């Protein structure tokens, strides 16, 4: 009797189905709900010509050499209390091998308020550094030559003001604006969608963003004018697909606004950058980064007709997911962050921030900040993953997942277009509702234990010893208040007053506001004074909240 040799795949299928599976709950989908198969094979590889790094559509990376030419920038976000304290922490991190600075501002600064405003009470210095005027900015970068480093500033509504302060500090150091390198977050659309640090209504906010992009294209050409962000959208509870789709849709809205202003695509698109989350579902994140590059390249070329290669190459910064960290057994956060950082590196990020283990409870201590930095150095110098370009390219699973994420993102683009675009969709609360629904669904999964979070809903430990956390000295608040009052007292009042009047007039008109803000900053107008001048013209936005 002749026995037919079994086809290898059929054989596997039979053996697999006959085998036992673990009973501790194998996930059948990614954390975002994308269904997973037990095994991916050549049949899952999409039929397309082989892709190479540095070639359109850049799925395998934007550089032909991957990290072999240059490692990702290790850019740890930090800032707290006063400019002097933060200056000290920056020097510590630079000495320990950090390669770029990243500034975290406190809530009053983020919201455009001076430290002595009544609503700033109790909020000063807790989640970042307090910057009220150029004087604080000078202290922040004291002894740090702005030619030698690049700086990322995480601020949105008042972003133009902080950029002008940075330019003014550089001026004082003798560094021309044309030599300055760095990034401004400046992504107001995601504020309306997720982080809610908006001040002005959407149209006025967009004007300020376009003003800054237009200004930098001429005067600060090495500056990344905007960091179009998915991180906050993800942290607010969205899925990976929503993060991908909403971020890229925001990007396109900014491109549309700049084109409407009369700029040419290749004049500004090369300096747009992105900022994504690196969450704990390892492979989904890698697929997300690769899909992002491919989608952006296609849209830039096919829809916007960009010709310059640099316009097509999506560059991004990544931060490991804050929401994946636990207050329980916090040392585990070091491991979580390492896994997430690895995903970012295998996804080809241009720069990376790794969270410290104690960040669920407070700003990081020196020690935990150092461990976070060392985690990146471990990946770069010990693990070997940076030596081969796009090592996961060709993986049946990763390629299939990349395609699926791209497909689902395109579906969202269509829905947003049907609503009339990003801003109408914001006003219709479309994004906010999607995010709130995903957040609630995820929480229910945790409560039902269909998703595990170690230390929180499984593998718990009773009676954990408290860990040392960073405390902001409450005395610093009154010192900062005194400082801003001193600045107001000592400045050239006439120059300041004229500058603000000039700004007001320009805001009513259609001039690019950057030069006016720069003059006000040089005259030591405070951030709050500049914001209030603009509020007089633009008004304050109130959102139509959905739960």
């Amino acid at each position, binding site marked *: 009797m002749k026995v037919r040799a079994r086809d290898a795949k059929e054989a596997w299928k039979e053996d697999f189905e006959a085998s036992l599976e673990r009973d501790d709950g194998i996930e059948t989908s990614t954390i975002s709900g994308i269904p997973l198969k037990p095994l991916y094979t050549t049949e899952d590889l999409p039929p397309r010509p082989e892709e190479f790094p540095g070639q359109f559509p850049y799925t395998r990376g934007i550089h032909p050499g991957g990290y072999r030419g240059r490692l990702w920038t290790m850019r740890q976000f930090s800032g707290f209390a006063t400019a002097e304290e933060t200056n000290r922490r920056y020097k510590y991190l630079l000495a320990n091998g950090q390669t770029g600075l990243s500034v975290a501002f406190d809530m009053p600064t983020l919201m455009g308020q001076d430290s002595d405003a009544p609503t700033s009470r109790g909020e000063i210095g807790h989640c970042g550094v307090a910057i009220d005027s150029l004087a604080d900015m000078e202290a922040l970068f004291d002894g740090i030559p702005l030619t030698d480093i690049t700086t990322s500033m995480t601020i949105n509504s008042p972003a133009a003001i902080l950029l002008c302060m940075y330019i003014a500090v550089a001026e004082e150091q003798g560094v021309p604006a044309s030599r300055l390198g760095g990034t401004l977050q400046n992504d107001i659309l995601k504020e309306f969608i997720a982080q809610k640090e908006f001040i002005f209504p959407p149209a006025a906010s967009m004007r300020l963003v376009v003003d800054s992009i237009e200004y930098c294209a001429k005067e600060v050409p090495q500056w990344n004018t905007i960091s179009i962000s998915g991180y906050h959208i993800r942290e607010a509870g969205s899925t990976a697909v929503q993060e991908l789709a909403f971020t890229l849709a925001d990007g396109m809205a900014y491109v549309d606004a700049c084109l409407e202003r009369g700029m040419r695509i290749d004049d500004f698109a090369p300096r747009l950058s992105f900022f994504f989350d690196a969450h704990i579902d390892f492979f989904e994140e890698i697929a997300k980064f690769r899909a992002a590059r491919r989608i952006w390249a296609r849209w830039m070329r096919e829809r916007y007709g960009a010709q310059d290669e640099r316009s097509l190459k999506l560059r991004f910064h990544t931060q490991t997911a804050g929401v994946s960290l636990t207050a329980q057994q916090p040392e585990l956060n070091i491991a979580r962050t390492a896994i997430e950082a690895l995903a970012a590196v295998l996804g080809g990020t241009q720069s990376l921030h790794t969270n410290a283990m104690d960040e669920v409870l407070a700003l990081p201590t020196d020690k935990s900040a150092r461990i976070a930095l060392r985690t990146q150095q471990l990946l770069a110098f010990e693990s070997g993953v940076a030596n081969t370009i796009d090592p996961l390219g060709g993986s049946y699973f990763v390629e299939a997942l990349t395609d699926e994420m791209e497909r689902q993102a395109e579906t969202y683009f269509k829905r947003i277009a049907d609503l009339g675009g990003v801003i109408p969709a914001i*006003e219709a609360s479309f994004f906010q509702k999607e995010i709130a629904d995903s957040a609630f669904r995820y929480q229910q999964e945790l409560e039902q234990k269909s998703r595990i979070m170690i230390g929180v809903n499984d593998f718990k430990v009773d009676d954990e010893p408290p860990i040392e956390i960073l405390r902001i000295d409450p005395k610093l608040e009154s010192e900062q208040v005194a400082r801003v009052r001193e600045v107001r007292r000592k400045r050239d009042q006439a120059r300041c007053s004229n500058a603000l009047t000039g700004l007001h007039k320009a805001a009513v008109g259609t001039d690019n506001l950057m030069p006016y803000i720069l003059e006000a900053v040089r005259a030591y107008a405070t951030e709050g004074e500049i914001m209030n001048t603009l509020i007089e013209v633009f008004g304050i936005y*109130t959102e*139509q*909240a959905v*739960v």
Partner: protein
Amino acid sequence: MEGRDPAVRSLEQSLRKEGRAPGVVGFTGAPGTGKSTLVDGVVALLRKRESSVAVLATDPNSPFTGGAILGDRIRMQRHALDPKVFIRSMGARGHLGGLSLATRQAIRLLGAFGFDEVILETVGVGQSELEVAAVADTTVVVLTPNLGDGVQMIKAGILEIADILVVNKADLDGHARVVTELRSMLSLAPKSGWKPPILATVAAKQEGVEGLWEAVLAHRHHLESSGQGRHLAEQRLKDETAEAAAEIARDRVRHALVDDPALAARLLAEGAPYRTAEEILNSPGKLSSSPPPGLRPTSPAGGEVN
């Protein structure tokens, strides 16, 4: 009304006590029509004209859990801390005597505290719009252009209760079509003496709000000059008396069944609810052990504004 009661205190801190009956305007319509934004605009207008205004906004409770997210207040944030604006969110269920009884008593109380205007706002779910129409002097029905299946799908009865029709979000496509369809539907069923105007608003931009209030005042004038206003007010008082009687009776029966196990047992054995009810109501001395609705001393605002 207890002096130490928080809600009452809040009202006391606001206004004069003159006891004049406030004007009552009801707003109703499907979810998503922008009612709250429109009401917010009307409040702003009234405040500009120095009237004091109270808003009673109702949202549906889940029929299963009883819970609700009462989402109207958040649409009126600009009036926060204005002592001449009082906003109360209510769940549609769980009021002794039903929503309209609770609302009527709240209106009386708000009038006693001197509010010039009371605005009722409900989502057009269940029977809530009929309850609003029964209580309000003027009922405004709010619609929008994106009604999906068209005006024909509007719930039966909702057009009949409208004294004023508003098509909000007038800046959207399809607005003109909705207005035309409404006009033809209304011509088929004319109300006695008053022709409900169809108004266009863009509540988000405060457009059309003045015109809306002019229409409300015109309707009030009509009620007064035609005598219809007085007639309706008398009818309302009688209706309220009947509802109060029903609630008292309901309460007595419920308590009797709890207090008298023998009675309850007989009910279960015989299965004759009507006979049992008559027996309870006809028997003297079987007073309910709790005070009638509206007078619970420990509840806020008289116990009914919950």
